[in-house]
């Protein structure tokens, strides 16, 4: 960025600092677009006490601060401000703790460490090559070097996995780039190939840990740096202050970590609304006719075909696709169903909206039909007018303006921060069909006079059973994605959930719902403590897909049935207002539970004082005998 551009950006930051009431809703986007790590570092330092709602458009995406710890084997002070700008741009208020330098192992393993005391939601473990490679490594004994590298990497993985299991923090490792002087230390071509191999074996070990361990994830930093200008390490910074990363490397890492934070907090987008003309294909179908549009293997048609393939890949991983295009429905159907070069077909879309209504009203209506928040939506269009309209009217929507060469369109849509997810589950491949049914249900509802008549007509059945190895990943994903019906705002990670599920002192249950339109799959869960006197519901989450149907009351009925059968006298339940979980607030008081003393105490009731909770229109069908819970 030029000096003037830099000064302009910092002047906007200064204006925010000068007036605590000031807001600059475009600043977050500006920070996300900026590629100058030095400027972002200064901005991030200044923004230490500024909250996300002052730099973003739309409603805040999370009201509690996100606690992020940075534990590094080298001086990583430069990462903190870059992380801050990335998180603010994502709508997150970070509380960042930088652990003492080069104490990664102690911090992870010592239960009395600063890191443990900080109680991080997310723990970033940063390693440089010297944490793995001994200072006196011998290029003529690469087998020996390999053994040490693998041992050290495994030690990091073990410490990080144990920390994740002990604390419930989501832990991010990364592949470690090998700086040039280390590569150049080996002069033989064959030996240098061997060094490359063992270095990658080490990184493969780190990557595998991110695939396999609960609560442990790995960012492939080495691969990201292939697209980053300049060296990974500036020898002057390293020798002088043990700063192992250049500012560009720090920024590349901070972007990965920010995307990870979005994934952990469930802020990845869930719906991609696509324009058609000059977005999904080249040309204008209304003018050029179904045979005249550009698709296929030749430029520029191949750019549009590629975007379709990318969208299909997103669809297979659980992103819902929809069309919103100003067109007549006839030619659009003809192309979607019949054009031989189309990759996407009608069944790939949850909705095809081809008419002449304003796109902002179409998208808002679709959000309502799907019962999804607008902050789950991304919208891609080549038209500056449509992008401006949607962005202006629906500030929560992530607008992707596909201007310029169509060869760049796929990369714009695929921005990793946009679709951040921790993992994909079996439900994701069926998500389009699930949400098509939800739209049908919405329309079915519109045809009924009373809510009760509608609900009775749905024929809702609720199945509740203990979580098992097949449903656990989906339950954890659901907890991280659910903000509205979430009793405490807490997303219990994989490690904590598995530990509770395996313990006789706890119960972890999944909730599945079916109705006349089909099965919804796992749409909710309960985490509870089973005491001899009292059962305590630590958290309950329900997907917004099944809200307003009384399912939560059937779930509470089932939990209290289990507690009674186990001989308990009381049921207790935690509730913490998060600013977004209003829909969940009424369940406990309306069911007859009351806060014993003060707002921090759990809700509580005698089990024998509770009346029936399950609504008449729901059939509650536990799948397992009670003593198996």
């Amino acid at each position: 960025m030029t000096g003037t551009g830099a000064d302009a950006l910092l002047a906007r930051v200064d204006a925010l600092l000068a007036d605590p009431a000031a807001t600059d809703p475009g600043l977050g986007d500006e920070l996300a677009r900026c590629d100058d790590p030095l400027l972002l570092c200064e901005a991030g330092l200044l923004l230490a006490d500024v909250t996300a709602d002052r730099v973003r458009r739309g409603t805040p995406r999370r009201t509690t601060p996100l606690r992020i710890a940075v534990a590094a084997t080298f001086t990583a002070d430069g990462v903190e401000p870059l992380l801050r700008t990335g998180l603010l741009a994502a709508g997150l208020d970070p509380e960042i703790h930088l652990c003492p330098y080069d104490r990664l192992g102690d911090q992870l393993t010592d239960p009395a460490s600063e890191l443990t005391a900080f109680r991080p939601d997310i723990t970033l473990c940063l390693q440089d090559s010297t944490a793995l490679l001994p200072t006196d490594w011998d290029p003529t004994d690469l087998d020996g070097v390999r053994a040490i590298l693998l041992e050290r990497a495994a030690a990091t993985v073990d410490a990080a996995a144990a920390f994740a299991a002990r604390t419930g923090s989501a832990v991010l490792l990364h592949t470690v780039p090998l700086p040039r002087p280390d590569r150049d230390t080996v002069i033989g071509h064959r030996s240098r190939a061997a060094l490359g191999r063992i270095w990658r074996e080490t990184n493969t070990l780190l990557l595998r840990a991110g695939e396999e361990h609960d609560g442990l994830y790995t960012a492939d930093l080495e691969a990201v740096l292939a697209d980053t200008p300049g060296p990974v390490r500036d020898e002057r910074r390293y020798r002088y202050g043990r700063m192992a990363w250049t500012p560009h490397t720090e920024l590349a890492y901070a972007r990965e970590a920010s995307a990870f934070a979005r994934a952990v907090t469930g802020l990845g987008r869930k719906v991609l609304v696509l324009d058609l003309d000059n977005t999904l294909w080249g040309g204008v179908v209304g003018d050029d006719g179904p045979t005249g549009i550009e698709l296929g293997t030749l430029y520029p048609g191949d750019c549009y075909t590629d975007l379709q393939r990318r969208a299909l890949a997103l669809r297979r991983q659980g992103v819902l696709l929809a069309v919103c295009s100003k067109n007549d429905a006839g030619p659009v159907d003809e192309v979607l169903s019949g054009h031989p070069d189309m990759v996407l077909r009608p069944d790939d879309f949850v909705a095809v909206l081809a008419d002449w209504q304003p796109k902002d009203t179409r998208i808002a209506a679709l959000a309502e039909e799907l019962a999804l928040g607008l902050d789950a939506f991304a919208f891609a269009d080549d038209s500056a007018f449509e992008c401006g309209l949607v962005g202006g009217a629906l500030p929560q929507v992530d607008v992707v303006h596909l201007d310029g060469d169509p060869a760049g369109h796929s990369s714009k849509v695929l921005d990793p921060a946009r679709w951040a997810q921790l993992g994909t589950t079996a439900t994701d491949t069926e998500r389009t069909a699930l949400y098509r049914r939800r739209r049908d249900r919405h329309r079915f509802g519109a045809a009924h006079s009373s809510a009760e008549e509608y609900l009775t007509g749905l024929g809702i059945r609720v199945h509740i059973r203990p979580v098992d190895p097949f449903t656990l990943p989906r339950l954890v994903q659901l907890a991280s994605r659910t903000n509205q019906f979430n009793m405490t705002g807490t997303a219990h990670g994989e490690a904590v959930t598995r530990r509770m599920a395996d313990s006789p002192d706890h119960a972890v249950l999944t909730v599945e719902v079916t109705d006349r339109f089909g099965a919804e799959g796992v749409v909710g869960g309960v985490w509870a403590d089973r005491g001899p006197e009292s059962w305590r519901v630590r958290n309950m989450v329900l997907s917004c897909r099944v809200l307003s149907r009384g399912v939560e009351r059937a779930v509470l009925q089932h939990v209290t049935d289990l507690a009674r059968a186990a001989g308990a006298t009381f049921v207790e339940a935690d509730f913490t207002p998060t600013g977004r979980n209003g829909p969940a607030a009424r369940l406990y008081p309306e069911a007859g539970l009351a806060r014993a003393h003060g707002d921090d105490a759990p809700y509580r009731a005698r089990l024998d004082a509770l009346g029936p909770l399950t609504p008449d229109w729901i059939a509650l069908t536990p799948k397992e005998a009670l003593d198996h819970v």
Partner: protein
Amino acid sequence: MSDAMTTLPGLVARVTRHPADEITADSPFTGLGRWGSLVAVRLLATVEQAYGVRLDLRHYLTIRTVGELAAEIDRRLETRATPAG
């Protein structure tokens, strides 16, 4: 006044948060805002990016005032502009 001195105070102000109009050639770095080793490294990176020069870290760490740094930047710019030989 050296060429770099016209723009350098703005960069120094950005990194130290010391008001630009109070920064002169005689200003010692140690008297500027939050000056310390991390700030020194940030200023080095900022200067190198802004002027497209690369400084010798050993020499940079001996520089005491803003004016001395401006002179060093000018020297580097001249060396870069003069063809070798």
